[in-house]
């Protein structure tokens, strides 16, 4: 029970952090068809901005300003970079964002150095919120849950209940028609890209001190975010949300379940010993492959349901 509840909370926190990153990416991906490799870089830049800002103006100002800075950076990248490359098709865009990710990583290394920076949880939130059978649940994690939940709500409301959301949705499915009706589709693209990077920046601000702010953080977070986006389905915020939470929970619970395929076979009366062919593979326990499970799921969903969980069109 104890392990279950604590794992559930941990899984939720991690899932929500994933969602903050993935929501921006799924917006950009579904809208512009660009698989933005530099998305996790925005997450990293957000964390570094927040670190530097928090030295001068404190965490709370950084929480607002750093994502805005990231958004401006995103807008600039879209207007002066991506839009020009767009003409040459998706492969060119893909390569462009890939190169951008490398450049950003190098720039961060040159600006802030190669080792981790001491970006810390603000002292106002640095206390255990409650105690679960001796394991403390830090207040900061609750704060992360709160921020991401607020974010989900506001994006969802913004997309479905406002005029601007309608235009975005229209430009998403019928860009030519929306353009013909007098909407400035390129500007909508810039806005979406900027908003997406700002969300990633926000994830960086609150994820950077929860984890460690170092130049490798973009690289380590990138792949899992793609898994979430593809798994959840293109253009579906709800799908992205479900996928994020699912990935968070799967990875968390896989760690605490010490079982292997051999244990499963034993239930059916088939005992695996060292002599069994392939016993090394069968005896690998779940925690050892926990971090790989999302990628296994990615392969499965691409084979069985290419449009993803709640996707509206094929990848």
């Amino acid at each position, binding site marked *: 029970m104890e*392990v279950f509840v604590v794992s559930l909370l941990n899984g939720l926190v*991690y899932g929500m952090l994933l969602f903050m990153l993935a929501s921006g990416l799924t917006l950009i991906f579904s809208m512009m068809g660009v698989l933005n490799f530099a998305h996790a870089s925005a997450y990293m830049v957000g964390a570094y901005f927040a670190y530097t800002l928090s030295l001068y103006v404190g965490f709370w100002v950084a929480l607002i300003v750093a994502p805005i800075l990231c958004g401006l950076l995103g807008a600039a990248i879209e207007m002066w970079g991506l839009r020009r490359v767009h003409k040459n098709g998706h492969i060119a865009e893909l390569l462009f964002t890939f190169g951008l990710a490398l450049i950003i990583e190098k720039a961060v290394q040159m600006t802030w150095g190669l080792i981790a920076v*001491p970006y810390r949880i603000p002292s106002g939130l640095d206390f255990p919120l409650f105690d679960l059978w001796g394991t403390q649940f830090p207040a900061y994690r609750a704060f992360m849950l709160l921020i991401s939940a607020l974010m989900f709500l506001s994006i969802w409301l913004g997309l479905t209940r406002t005029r601007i959301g309608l235009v975005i949705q229209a430009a998403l499915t019928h860009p030519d028609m929306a353009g013909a009706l007098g909407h400035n589709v390129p500007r909508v693209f810039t806005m979406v890209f900027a908003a997406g990077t700002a969300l990633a920046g926000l994830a960086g601000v609150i994820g950077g001190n929860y*984890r*460690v702010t170092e130049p490798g953080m973009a690289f380590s977070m990138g792949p899992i975010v793609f898994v979430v986006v593809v798994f959840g389905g293109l253009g579906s915020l709800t799908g992205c949300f479900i996928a994020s939470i699912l990935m968070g929970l799967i990875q968390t619970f896989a760690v605490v379940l010490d079982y292997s395929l051999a244990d499963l076979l034993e239930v059916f009366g088939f005992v695996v010993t060292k002599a069994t062919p392939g016993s090394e593979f069968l005896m690998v326990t779940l925690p*050892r492959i*926990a971090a790989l499970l999302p990628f296994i799921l990615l392969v499965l969903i691409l084979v069985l349901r290419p449009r993803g969980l709640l996707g509206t069109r094929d990848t």
Partner: protein
Amino acid sequence: MRFVRTILSAAAAGLVALAAGAMQPAMAQPTIKIAYTDPLSGPFAQVGDANLKQMQYIIDHINSKGGALGRKFELVPFDNKSQPSDALIALKTATDQNMPFIMQCSGSNIAAALIDGINKHNDRNPDNRIIYLNCGAVATELTNDQCSFWHFRFDLNVAQKAEVMVRALPKTTTKVYLINQDYLFGQSVQRDVGAFIKKLRPDIQIVGDELIPLGKIQDFSPYITKIKASGAQALLTGNWGPDMNLLIKAGIESGIDLNYYTFYAHLAGGPTAIGPGGENRVYAVMSFGENIAPEIGNKEAEAWTAGFRAKHNFDFSAAVFRTIFEHVQAAINKAGSVDATKIAFAMEGQAMKDFLGYDTLMRKDDHQIMTAYYVGVFKKGVKYDAEKTGLGWSTAATIKMDDVQQPTSCKMRRPRI
């Protein structure tokens, strides 16, 4: 503009040097070149970059003490991008230029490739041999089954470090949890720590023993939950990089009552990630700490390490590399030549005191250094803090050379002179 000026001034300096060389032939002795290969770009660049700066500081000191045979040492860096193939290219370049030494610190897989390449090269080219100075590739095998006459290891191997770690566990600790990375190094830490617990502390129960995929885990909280449920008092890990930083950070944030025994918590990024919450909880098995010199009252050593901080503004955690260069210096002077074969024979079995005053021995049987080693505990109120955190490594235990002697299975094959 600055760039152009740098080029111009470099060119001018080059011209002057050329002119000077032409006018005074054979006045300045050629330097003794040491090739240094480690990752200088890519995800592990910080390791190579920091090592390079520290080695340069040490070499400057050695040169100010007269170098060897009246010649100065020169470090020639080669980026190997953490790839064995690139390290072998560096080796080729070094031997082409007749350098007597190649040095490498990070990655036992790279070390193994280098040893193999050097064995072959030295067999085929008896008049152009090269010595491998290993400053940190610690797989136990390299001085046991895979030992080589040309390989000299200046850091303790995994088995020795594991013994130091197990010896450092207090008597009150009876339940430990092991987490290691799922590859060659992590698996050997797991094996050796387990073996020494069985041998030295049979009262200790290993309540959890886990391998994690290298560099893949984003959130370690579930592991902490598991450790908590197991009732462990101490976590023993050989993890490095993000796998160690995130693990300890998650543990400290959850506030569980646990001590951390690590191999690498004192290195790049570790202290920053641990933070003030880790006070008196995190232990590191380390080759050196900047607070050792003030603790034992060695003013000269302290002034020398403080000089590095004044110049570079980061931790001088690899100051013990000085032992490498002092052994090399002594061996060259003893051999009276920069011929690799003669130096190697002079270096094996060589005993000398390190700059802190502790005994060191380059053991003849397996070319494994025997040296004092330390267990540091992370706490406030130390003279030199780590990574500007305000906390630093205070020495909890000093293990002398004689206590790290372990038997070797090496059958050394020596060349005929």
